[in-house]
Structure formats: C-alpha cells, structure tokens
C-alpha cells in the first residue's frame, strides 16, 4: 500500500517526473546538490527511525498509552479536569483555525482574530480588569511575566516578590527563573490555616517589594478570605498585587478588580482542555495603565476599507519581533488555539452554566469533605475554610500508605504531608464519589 510506502514523506506530493523537472529548472543534478553543506559537517548516517503507517502508529500509541493505569483522578493542585463539551473539539478542530498561523495578515484571519478578541473580553468581564492578552503558556509563566511586569511598571525600584509559602511547586520554580533574569528575588510569606497570614505578610512588606502574589482558591483549595486586605497592603507599599485564579473560580469568587488586583494570572484551560497532562493556557489580565507593558499578543479593533469593524493584532511594538531585547517578553508562539477552546467552552456554558459549575465546585468539595469526615480515621477538611473543588484531609494512617492503597482501588489522590491527602472533585469525578468514599472507608481502616 501507498500508506506503507517508505520512499519519502507521504506529505511531499512530488512525483519522480515532477522532481526531475524541478531539478532541471534550477539546474541541479540531484536534490543533494542543493544542500550547501561543507563535507565535514554533513550527516551521512541514519537516525534508525523506521517509518510506519498511520494505522500502525495509531495502534502503537493506543497500546503504549494504554499502559497508563485507568484511574479515577481526584487530583487538582493547579490543574483541573472539567468536562469539555463535544462542541469545543468539533469547532476548534476546523482546519481554518487549527492550521492557521499568527494573524499577521488580518484581512484573511478575521475569524480567528474575532474569537481571540472575544476570549479577551470574557476575561475582562471575569477579572474586572481592562486588558487581557490572548495567552501566555500557562499559569506559571503568566506569573513569571507578572513579576517582570511589576518591575517595569513599579515607580520605585523593587526587587522582591512575595508569594505564599504553599503554592504549586512548578509555579514557584518557573517564577524564580523569570524573576532571576530581572534580578528579582522570590520570598515566601506564611499561611494561616490555608489562607494568607495577613499580619505576617505585613511584616515582610517594604518599599523594595515589587509584587505580592496571592491565590484564590489557594493551592490547597481554600477560598481566600483576606484578598482585600492583601491588596491594600500591597498598594500601601506601592507593590503590585497579583492574583492567581482561573475562569471557573472567577465566575463566582470575589472579582479581582474589586479587591485591588493589578494583575490576574492563572490557567484558563480549566475551560476547554481537560487535564491534558498539564498542558494549559496562561491567563493574563491587568489594568489599562500597564497596557504598553503587557507581554504577549493583543487583538484590537479597527476598521477596514468598507468601513466595517475589523480585528487586528495591535500594539505589536511591545513584541519581540519588533522590539527585540527591549520587548515586554520573549513570547512568540503562544496558546492561541487553547484560547479559542476556552472561549467556546465558556460560551457554551453561558453565565448561568459557568456560575452553576463554579457553585458545584464549592458544594461537591464541601459534600465530599463532609462524607470523608464521617469516616473513622479521616478528618476533612483540614482547614477551617470554605473550599473550591478541593481540600486537604488528615489521615491517621500515613497518607502515602492511604494513597497507595487507593491507587490499588483505582483512585489517584495527592499526598501533601505525612498525614495529609489532598482531594479534588470536579464534574468529571462527581459520579465516582460514592465509590471513592467506599474505597477510602476501606483503606483507612
């Protein structure tokens, strides 16, 4: 079959006759002649990669990935699995979206530009801030960009960023890398029962702080109760207040603008992408006054020759391809297609659906915590707070043993401390809660 024809790329359509005609046209004897590569650095070997048919690769990957255990995941800590409606896949997979490039020719890319403009607008509504870009890579890199922005826009030079002592490990590490290039140091402030310890934060604040970062919900799933105070403290020291969240949480919890957030970061792929082994999309929104310091792409509105409203990438002079080392960020390829997915998912839910989903995140976690608290040997939630999607549970048995036993029963949970598990419930796991409670009851005994 042609499918298995291994003479060349199946996606290079040249017939032999065509290749010859083209070689003749350029006056070359062979394809090799066209490679202007000095002999010493020529590669004459093989990669030893056998070509396979698409049929066999599909079978191979079904098989390989099939080696993953089939677990029901009660995992969260910065990455959440909500049900993504079919509509998202079917529309986002349309090739005009999926296979297009960055919209440098807006006249022929109006559709994608409009979709990104709508994505930006949804985040403007959810955050209450005036400007949202059309994506960073993920929550961690968005936070990193917030740190570099804070240094650029802060009136007094500052080189400290204060972050919660408990945050997702990866997010902190990425932040430290971004910060280090700008000479910013990252310091932790203490938590009090899963929320910001406001007094402790106050003690740490000084004029050399550029950024105060808090999360809502926090990495442990608690809903932050002192956001307004944190914002006030940050502003009192002329630091930017950066809030981490996600679009589902934003639909219900305090509006970032109303608590003084200057930047909102987070992972917007809680809508539109599912777990995806950690792939996400960095949400980045900020105040209009920082517009010209925003990293990444922005879609704006203009007019075309027919006088109709048209969309275009705008303020590109901030970007690396124009400003090079003076750009606001080095980002070029971003997560535009994920932004499209997030927007479609949000639109599919509508405001009622989004708020309902967010309220479910509170009640599902609350109900599961209560049920686990009824199990002998478990105390949940560990923090005396309201929770969003997830919570910690203290176990009499070592948490690692409990998690291992649950794994055998087909469930994945986080171990966050010697006697502490973290458990996340979303709409995709809601149906499995009964089985999970039964399994926990069994394994903690």
């Amino acid at each position, binding site marked *: 079959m042609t499918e298995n024809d291994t003479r060349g*790329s199946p996606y290079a359509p040249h017939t032999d006759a065509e290749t010859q005609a083209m070689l003749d046209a350029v006056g070359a004897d062979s394809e090799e002649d066209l490679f*202007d590569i000095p002999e010493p650095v020529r590669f004459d070997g093989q990669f030893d990669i056998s070509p396979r048919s698409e049929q066999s690769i*599909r079978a191979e990957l079904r098989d390989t990935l099939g080696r993953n255990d089939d677990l029901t995941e009660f995992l969260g800590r910065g990455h959440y699995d909500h049900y993504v409606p079919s509509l998202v896949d079917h*529309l986002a997979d349309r090739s005009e979206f999926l296979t297009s490039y960055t919209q440098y020719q807006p006249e022929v890319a109006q559709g994608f530009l409009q979709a990104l403009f709508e994505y930006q607008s949804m985040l403007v509504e959810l955050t209450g801030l005036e400007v949202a870009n059309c994506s960073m890579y993920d929550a961690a890199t968005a936070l990193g960009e917030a740190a570099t922005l804070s240094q650029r826009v802060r009136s007094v030079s500052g080189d400290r960023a204060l972050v919660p002592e408990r945050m997702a490990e990866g997010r902190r590490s990425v932040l430290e890398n971004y910060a280090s290039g700008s000479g910013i140091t990252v310091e932790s402030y203490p938590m009090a029962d899963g929320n910001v310890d406001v007094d402790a934060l106050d003690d740490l604040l000084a004029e050399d702080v550029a950024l105060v970062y808090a999360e809502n919900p926090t990495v442990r799933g608690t809903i932050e109760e002192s956001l307004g105070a944190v914002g006030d403290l940050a502003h009192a020291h002329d630091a930017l207040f950066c809030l981490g969240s996600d679009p589902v949480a934003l*639909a219900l919890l305090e509006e970032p603008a109303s608590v003084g957030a200057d930047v909102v970061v987070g992972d917007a792929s809680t809508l539109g992408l599912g777990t*995806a082994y950690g792939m996400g999309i960095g949400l980045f929104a900020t105040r209009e006054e920082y517009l010209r310091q925003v990293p990444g792409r922005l879609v704006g509105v203009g007019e075309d020759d027919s006088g109709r409203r048209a969309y275009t990438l705008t303020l590109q002079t901030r970007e690396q391809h124009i400003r090079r080392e003076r750009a606001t960020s080095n980002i070029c*390829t971003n997560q535009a297609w994920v932004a499209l997915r997030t927007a479609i998912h949000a639109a599919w839910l509508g405001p009622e659906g*989004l708020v309902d989903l967010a309220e479910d995140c509170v009640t599902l976690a609350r109900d599961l915590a209560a049920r686990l608290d009824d199990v002998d040997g478990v105390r949940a939630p560990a923090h005396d707070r309201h929770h969003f999607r997830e919570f910690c549970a203290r176990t009499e048995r070592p948490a690692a043993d409990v998690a291992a036993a649950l794994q055998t029963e087909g469930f994945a949970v986080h171990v966050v401390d010697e006697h502490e598990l973290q458990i996340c419930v979303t709409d995709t796991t809601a149906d499995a809660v009964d089985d999970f409670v039964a399994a926990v009851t069994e394994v903690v005994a």
Partner: protein
Amino acid sequence: TQARWTDSEERYEPLLAEKDTTEVEIGGDSPLPDDLTRDSVELPSLSEPELARHYTRLSQMSYGVESGPFPLGSCTMKYNPKFTEDVAALPAAGVHPDRSDETVQGTLELMYRLQDYLGRIGGMDAVTLQPPAGAAGEYAGILVAKAYHEANGNDRSEVIVPDSAHGTNFATAALAGYDVLELPSAEDGRVDLDALEAAVSDDTAALMLTNPNTLGCFERDIEEIASVVHDAGGLLYYDGANLNALLGRARPGDMGFDIMHYNVHKTFATPHGGGGPGAGPVGVAERLAPFLPSPRVRRTDDGAFELFEPEQTVGKVHGFQGNWLVLVKTYAYIARLGDPGLADASAKAVLNANYLAAQIDYEVPFGPFHHEFVASAGEQDAADVAKRMLDYGVHPPTTKWPEIVDEALMTEPTEIENKRTLDQLAAAFDAVAAEDEEALDAAPQQTAARRIDQVAAARTPRLSWQALDEES
C-alpha cells in the same frame, strides 16, 4: 474568494456579546457567604446551535494550511497530518500531570522515546520536552548555559546574536538577564567571522545562531564559528526554527552546537493553531545535561520509566511538563516519516524553495538557498504586495524582514507544495509584480475583510467588547 459573512454596513459577523448576554446575580442560593463572592457576572448567553454557526462562520473567515498555499518564511507552514490529531485525542493521552510514575508508564515511555528520537535527529545527547514553545526553548537553553557557566565559576554577561536572527533570540537573552551583543552580517548575509572574533570575549556566554539563517543560507563557516566561540569559553546555541532544511543532511550536534531547541510546530508539522500551542524541546551535549529543566524521564534497570531531577537542574520553565498533546503529535509525525521521510521532507523543502525562487520575477539576492529565500519587492511596498497576493487566493510571504533585504518577501513554500502549486504561487508573485500602486493600494478585495487600518487601531486601542460598549 474567502467567505465574508456580513451583518450590516457596520460589521461582519457580530460579536457573541452583541447577539445575547445575560447577567447572572450571585447570592440567594449561593453556597458561599456574600463577602466571598462577586455580585454578578454578565457573559454571552447563546444556544449551542447559535454557537456552532458563529464559530463556523468565523472559521470560514480564516485561512489555514488547508485553505491553500501558505509560504510564510521562517514559519514552516507544513501540512498537519490528521491522524496526529486522533492520537493526541486518545483519552489516555490526557492524564493529570501529578499522577505517580508507576501509574503513567505509557506516558513516560512515550516521552522517553520522543526524547530519544529528537536526540538522534539533532545529534544531541540529552533532551527535555518541557519548554512549551520555541522561545521557551531558547529560554530554557540559555538558562542551562547560564547555570553551566555559573557552575564552572565562570561569570559571563553577554550573549551574541547576529543581526539577521529571530527577535526571540534577543528577547530571550535579555529575559535571562544577559546583555545582548548584535553581530552585523557579512556581505553574503552570513556570519562575519572577523566581526565574531572581535565580539567574543571572556564575557561571552553564548552565540545564538540559526542555520540555515533567515535568508535561507547555510553558515558554511560553521566549524570556524564554533571554534571561535568555544575557544572564548562560550557555548553555541542552535535556534531550531530552520531545521526543516537539514533533516538527515546535517545535525546541529555534529556542527558543534552545544544547545538547541526544536520547533516541533515547524519541523515536525504540529499545527500552529493560529499562534500556538507549539512546543520547544531542548537538546544539549552531555556536559550540559545535568543542568536541564526538571523533571526528565529515564529508563530504570528493570525497564520501567521514571521522572528524575537532573543534578544541577535549572528548575522549571513550565508549570508541568509542557505542551504534552503537541508532543504526542510530534512523535506520531516522526514515526510516520522515519528516516526516509524526514530526509525527503528536507530535500523537497529545499527543492521547492530553489524552484520557486527561480520562477519569480522579483529579485532574489543572496543564496544558494535551502528551505527559504528572501525576495525583494524593490520599488513596491512589501506589505502592499502581500495584501495584493491575498487576492490571488494564496497567503503571502513574511514581509519586511529580515531587514537586510529591502522590502523583503521571505518565502518558505515547504515540501508540501508540488510543482503545480508552486507555479500558481509564482504566477501570483509575478502578477502582483506587474501591477501598479493603485491596484496594490486597493487590495485586498477577495478576503473576509478589506484592507484594515492597523495604525488607527493601535492609536486607540480597543481590546474588548466592553471597550466598544463604552464608546457607543
């Protein structure tokens, strides 16, 4: 002619929010106390059929690789095989990133195999899959270089970048805290060896180089370049944007590069998605492996796969493991082509660029070319040329860059076009070349929107429908 869905004299397809919105009040039966919630949220409120129509129309008002030729220079707009979408959509591909190693052996094995493939293709000893894009790969690579120098007690402050390089190289070096030293090109558009020798010093952390460069020309002096940089104690960084020109013909590792990133959405045909996601795995020579981002994957003696933290790791450049679903597609593409297919892809990419360059009336300076060439629009404005080309049903080249060519038309047809399509492209170039300013100014006519005034749009930025509302 592209579809053009017009709603009125004022607009094309209305915004979601212009169709219908609902404001939902929060409270009453909310499970949270009032002081922890917002008051209300107002968002578009449309039925699924309406959404399907909205996005179907928007899609028809966009242009992808499957709409027609897309010879965007430096962007490598290859066909994205459909089956790679299906493998990335396998439910088992999308597990949670915090699963324990023993429960995701399939995922880890696939990561391991892909690391191995990429290493062989680039001639690199160790690979990380974590960077979520090319620029993120550059950033990871420069962090590795920095950590390497620091570990060697070798404080260096400069990164050298040729003037023809991608803007990301400059921005990345700056983001990592380096001073950027711009290297002027020689007459032939390549690295000026003398200038390079003059530029290197004890402060040189790295030279970032694209090869073939953005003019499509191979840096023939690559061995000398490597010597100069290495002799100064610097590292050689390979920007993988143009790797599609070399598959199976030359490997960055063999040329002396110490660090490289792979643009899988270019070389390995994962979709560009209107700007992303891509992925930017990074390969390094053995001595740099201990500094790579954490975690990486290795195979244990008993054949299992596990994540591990490289000894002197720079930490992380992505919150989890990067754009994994993109990497699944990368693996599938490489497996589909294998040795013969990868080599053929480069051969045909280079043949196509050379053939097209020879067919068009515009002047094409420099050369010989590999996968792309930069023509000059001469007296015409390259941006106008691009707008007019749209009317011929093709996507134009990258324009006005690199600046080394006047009114640049940077053209990369890739291997996916055949002679028939290249001839159509050449006809479009030549038709535009023969047209007068009036015709160019009036373009485009055959697109979803007519010419857009981008300067005016930037003058009064309106970045959300809320901003439009305020106006009216």
